[in-house]
């Protein structure tokens, strides 16, 4: 199974690789959520959803179900 943003642990950093669905909203891309950019998992809300990310310096919150559609590569 592909690793997605939803799998990241608190404080973990990864590189955005691709979207598993074409239906990813444009707004997310405009906020900087693009392949090649770094993503840091800041923290999950209580109940694990939504999640709080730092993508390229922008802090945003998305729901876990959207996060599952964004594949990532490990950052070394």
């Amino acid at each position: 199974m592909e690793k997605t943003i939803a799998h990241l642990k608190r404080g973990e950093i990864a590189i955005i690789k691709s979207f598993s669905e074409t239906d990813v909203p444009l707004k997310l891309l405009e906020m900087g959520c693009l392949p090649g950019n770094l993503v840091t998992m800041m923290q999950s809300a209580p109940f694990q959803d939504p999640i709080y990310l730092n993508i390229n310096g922008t802090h945003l919150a998305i729901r876990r179900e959207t996060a599952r559609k964004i594949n990532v590569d490990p950052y070394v």
Partner: protein
Amino acid sequence: MSRSINVALIGNPNTGKTSLFNRLTGLNQKVGNYPGITVEKKEGLCKLDRGLKAHILDLPGTYSLNTSSLDESVVVETLLNKNSKDFPDVAVVISDIENLKRNLLLFTQIKDLEIPAILVINMADRMQRKAITLDIELMEKELNTRVVLVSARKNQGINALKEAISQYKTLKTEPCVNSSVIDPEYFSRLSKVYPNQQLYKLWLVITQDVNFGKVDRGRDYEKLKSSNFSVKSEEDLKKLQHKETVVRYQFINGLLKKVLHVDTVHAKDLRSKLDRILLHKVWGYLIFFFVLLLIFQAIYDWSEYPMDWIDQAFASLSQITAESLPDGPFTSLIAEGIIPGLGGIVIFIPQIAFLFLFIALLEESGYMSRVVFLMDHIMKKFGLSGKSVVPLISGTACAIPAVMATRNIEDWKERLITILVVPFTTCSARLPVYLIIIALVIPDQDIWWFFDLKALTLMLLYLLGFAAAIVSAWVLNKILPIKRKSFFVMEMPAYKLPMFKNVLITVIEKTKSFVLGAGKIIMAISIVLWILASYGVGDKFNNAESIVKEQYAGQDVEDKIIEQKIASHKLEHSFIGYIGKAIEPAVRPLGYDWKIGIAIVSSFAAREVFVGTLATIYSVENIKDEDKMNETIKNRMRAEVNPILGGPLFTFASGISLILFYAFAMQCMSTLAIVKRETNSWKWPAIQFTAMTIIAYFAALGAFQILK
């Protein structure tokens, strides 16, 4: 000589756009609406050098020109329509130093429209603390424009910006990104069909409808749409938009690599420390709860003193008017109809101001987004979005801006449900009714250290409003046959100390429009009510004096009491008395008399009319009684007697019943009108009105029958 130029202020949300706008225009601004839609339009004037004046338009915050909401489409509309009187001579694009990368996306789009654009980098005062260095000169060269560093918060760089604006003619308009690389073949075909048009503009027009409905962009673009240049499917266009965004970010990344240097040693900042606590699974909710509690404490307890002064002031104003103007029906109208009616609304200024103050503070500090984040999971279960929290909280001020605040909810089902349930939240128009009834039927008592029972009751009522909203959302989520996409993106802004000036302007602006708006309708209703209550037809009204005197003939009763009885008898047989008696059978099972019935009916125009109505009716009744002229409305209500059961009319049972009726009933024409506008059909407001009123009636009926 004075020339005026148009300046459009554009930027991402949370970049300090409003602060900059306030800095540039001071109090010299006006807030209105764009024609035909309820998007707020903020304009202001700013004096530049050499007699040049800038007419500054503060456009709604947006992340890009690919719009996905009504607010954002206003930005595109303004920038595309050259014939509009608002079309900017120069665009001031504001960005913030910490999110420069994302902010530049919008800047490149505006630049590509070939509108002269100045890049403003705000919060420059944070650069040193964040160890950020920026090569402005190189940046100006690469972007081919002026770059101005400002700090709206510290009032730095504003003059440099004014200077740059006044030299707008020297700005270059070449685009910085060539968007046609995303599909060269398509774009070259486009330019053949429309040789005189700018390509990026055409592209924007073509793709607008993909994300959003139709917007009016002037004649040229209507032609384009009707010419069937739709060789691409919607999905292909979306893919191209994704590609365009990537191309833009490539350009921006390349640029920032050259000009921006961040020393990333300081990892732990204020944000992560505060987030750790405020988003904690226990502390987070506890803090939110205490913030709410604090707000209600302020609304109830702290505003008590100014309210008492206002109450007294209006009572004596009534008396002075009656004594100093010549006797006659018009003087009575002013003294007994208009002044008590207006007093009924002015008295709530302190509370409304407190409420708006807290909402403004929560928004400005960045805490509101944290609340959204904390609540999303719970709200999702009820068919709402975390973003529904903002409408639900601003609904405590007024349902109208709350319904409009639902626009940033991405999912239509979540948005519709939010719109439908928002009127259950305790809006400030309900406050007058609650406060006066709580004062009458809830005993004075302290609980814990400093929360008094009355404040706690008020808090419970707010919770009741939220609970009603949430439960009905859950029901609606089950029964509405609409598919949910469940999409949610929200920026988590940096924490900021709220700027005093911004908060003050918001509070003044909102309180003013509340009081002026409510004042007009209350004045009109008081006039009508007073006349209906003071005149009547038939023997029983005209001969009231002799009828009552006959009744008490031979008994040893004080003259004063007789006069009082005459006034009551007259009122009962005035026009309003007959109307009230007609309604009485419907409201009696709820524990009310006909006077409250009248107040409820007039409340369907607006809830806060309730107190004004009772004030007017009671003061007509006390027409001859000089002592009672300057009595407060609260005391008059306390003196009311239940016509059937005897004893005080406002008991615990009837008071609770009345509160519940106001808690659930949809008594606001303006909200219904705005719901119609936002949902684009009469169906939803009609359902909302019927359902809420039925719930209200039965809740009140149940409460009175159980408690009495």
